[in-house]
C-alpha cells in the first residue's frame, strides 16, 4: 500500500500564562516517518506544547496545519482528535471500570470508522494483550496499562501519535518495550512526537528537539 507523507506544522505558536510566556513564536514542521523527541527542563512548556499539538488546548496564538490545511481553533476539533491524533500519557489515562478491550475500542465509539477486526487482532497480539483482554484495567501492571494505552492510541490508525512521558512510570525493560512498539508502528504516513525529559529515551528517537525559552531547537 502506497503511503503518502504527512506534515504537521506549527506556525508562530505562542502561549502565555498570565504575564509569563511559555511558548514564544514557535515554528516547526513535523514530517511523517519520524519519531520526534521533545526534550526540556521542568516548566519549559513541554506539556503545554503537547496540549497545543494534540488539539487539547485551543487557547494560543498562531496556527497549526496538517498537510497544509489550517486547523480551525474556534472549533472543538473532537473529530480531528479522534481520526488523526492518538495519545499516550504518562499516567495512562485509561477508564478504570472498563475492560482492556473496551478501553482499546473506546475511540471507535466516537468515530465513523468501523472496527477493523484484522488490525485489532494484530494490535493486541503485537502488544501482547491477548491474555488480559477481558481484564479490568485497574488490575493491570504499569507496563500492561501503557501497552493498553498504546493500543487505544493506535486503534484508529492516526497519523499523529503524541506521547507525553510514555515511559515516565515504567522500568527500563518496559520503557524499551514501549519504544520498540512505537518504532514498529511507525510508517511513512505517521508522525510520532514524544515529550520526555529522559535523554536515553530521546536518543532512541529519529530527531531530538529541545524546548528552550519557548522555542524548539533541533539537535542533529
Amino acid at each position, binding site marked *: 500500500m502506497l503511503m503518502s507523507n504527512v506534515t504537521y506544522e506549527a506556525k508562530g505558536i505562542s502561549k502565555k500564562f498570565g504575564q509569563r510566556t511559555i511558548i514564544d513564536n514557535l515554528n516547526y514542521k513535523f514530517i511523517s516517518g519520524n519519531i520526534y523527541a521533545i526534550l526540556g527542563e521542568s516548566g519549559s512548556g513541554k506539556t503545554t506544547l503537547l496540549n497545543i499539538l494534540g488539539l*487539547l*488546548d485551543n487557547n494560543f496564538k498562531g496556527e497549526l496545519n496538517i498537510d497544509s490545511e489550517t486547523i480551525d481553533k474556534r472549533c472543538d476539533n473532537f*473529530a480531528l482528535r479522534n481520526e488523526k491524533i492518538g495519545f499516550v500519557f*504518562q499516567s495512562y489515562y485509561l477508564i478504570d471500570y472498563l475492560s482492556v478491550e473496551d478501553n482499546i475500542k*473506546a475511540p471507535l465509539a466516537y468515530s465513523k470508522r468501523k472496527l477493523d477486526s484484522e488490525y485489532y487482532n494484530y494490535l493486541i497480539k503485537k502488544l501482547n494483550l491477548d491474555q488480559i483482554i477481558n481484564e*479490568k484495567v485497574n488490575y493491570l501492571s504499569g507496563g500492561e496499562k501503557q501497552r493498553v494505552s498504546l493500543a487505544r492510541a493506535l486503534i484508529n490508525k492516526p497519523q499523529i501519535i503524541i506521547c507525553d512521558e510514555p515511559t515516565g512510570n515504567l522500568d527500563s525493560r518496559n520503557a524499551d518495550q514501549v519504544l520498540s512498539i512505537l518504532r514498529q508502528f511507525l510508517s511513512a504516513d505517521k508522525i510520532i512526537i514524544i515529550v520526555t525529559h529522559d535523554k536515553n529515551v530521546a536518543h532512541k528517537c529519529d530527531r531530538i528537539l529541545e524546548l528552550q525559552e519557548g522555542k524548539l531547537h533541533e539537535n542533529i
Partner: protein
Amino acid sequence: MKIFEKMRDEYGKKKKGYAFLLFLSFIITFFLSVSFNSARIESIVHNIDYANYPIGYSAYRGMDSKEYKSVMNNKFTNLDYHFFYYGAKNPDTNIMYENLNVKVIGCQKNFETFPLPSAYSSTIVSSKLLEGESFDDLDIISQSNAMVMYSSQLKKIGYKPNDKIRMMGHDFVLKGVLEDNSDIKRNINEDIIQIFIPYTTYLSLFDSPYPNVETVIYTSNYTFDELDDNQNFISYYKVQDILQHTEDYIIQSSYITIGTTFVISCICTAIVQIILIKGRYNEIGIRRAIGASRDSIVFLFTKKSLYTILIGALMGFLTFLVVLFNVELILSHIYFTNFIMFNSNTTFLVLIIYIFLSYLSVLLPSILGTRINISTILVEER
C-alpha cells in the same frame, strides 16, 4: 445481562452518589405523588361528614379553572354553566355536587308561611323567612327576577342573600332565605335544589304546564347533567390552577408542597450530579482527548443518571400506591364509602414532570462539566 454488568461495574465505583440519587428519586416521587393527590385526600377527610351523607350525588371531585374563578368570587357566578359541566361545588366545604337537580317553583308573595296551600302541592311545609325579604306585590306585578331558597341548600352551593345567580340564562337576585330542617329535607328530596321565584316570572320565562294555576306552580326537574363529568378535564385544570395561583387554601397548600418538592428535588439532583461529575473529571478528559464531543459526554452522563432517576421514581411510585390503597381501604371501612383517591392522570403527570425536571437538573451540571478545558483536567489529574 452485559448492560447490567457494565452498569454494576461503573455504578460500583460511584456507589454512594448513585445510591443517594436513587434514594432521592424515591423520596421525591413518593412525596410528589402524595402532594398531587393530597387535595383530594385532605378534602375528603375534612368533609367526611358531608361525603358520608346518604345523598348519592355528593362527592368531592376536585376543582377546575372555571370553578377556581368562581371560588375567587366566593360563589358560582353562573349556576347553569357549572351545572352543565360538573354540577356545583361549595367553596366552603369543597364538596362537589354532581348531577345536581334544580327545581324551579313559581309562587305567590308572602313567604311567612310557605308554600301557600295549593291543590297541586302535595307537600306543604311551613317555612319562616330567615334572612332577606320575601316576594312582594311589586315582584309579582313586575315579574322580577327575584328568588328565594332554603338555607341548607343555599349553604350547599355557597350563596348569600343579594347575590346574583345566573340560572337558565337569566340573572336572578337572591332575595331571601327560608329556614328548613335541612337534614331531613335533603334526604327526602334527593339533593334537589328548590328555587322559588314569583309565579309571574316563572310563567313568562319558563312556561308552565299549569297555566291557570295562580298559587304554586311546580315544574318538572331541570337537570344539568348533560355532559359526563370528565376526570381528565379536572386533572388538567388542576395543573392550570398551579399557574393561576388558586386561592383555595387546600389546593394552594398542596401546590406549594408540590412546587417546593420540585425545587428541592431539582437542587438535590443537580448537586448529586455535580458530585458525580466532579468524581469523573478524569474520565471526561480522557473521553474528550480520544475524540468524544461535548454532546456525547453530556448524553453519557445524563443517560446514566436518568436510569437511576427512573428506577427511584418507579420505586417511589409503587410505594405511594401501596400506601394510598391501604389508606383508602381503612377509610372505606370506617365510613362505608368508597373514596377513589387515586387519580391515574395526576400520578402519570407527576412522573412525567418529575422525570422531565430531573433530566433538566442533571443536564445542566453535565453541560457545565464538559465546558472545562481538557488539558486542565488531564494536567490536574497528574
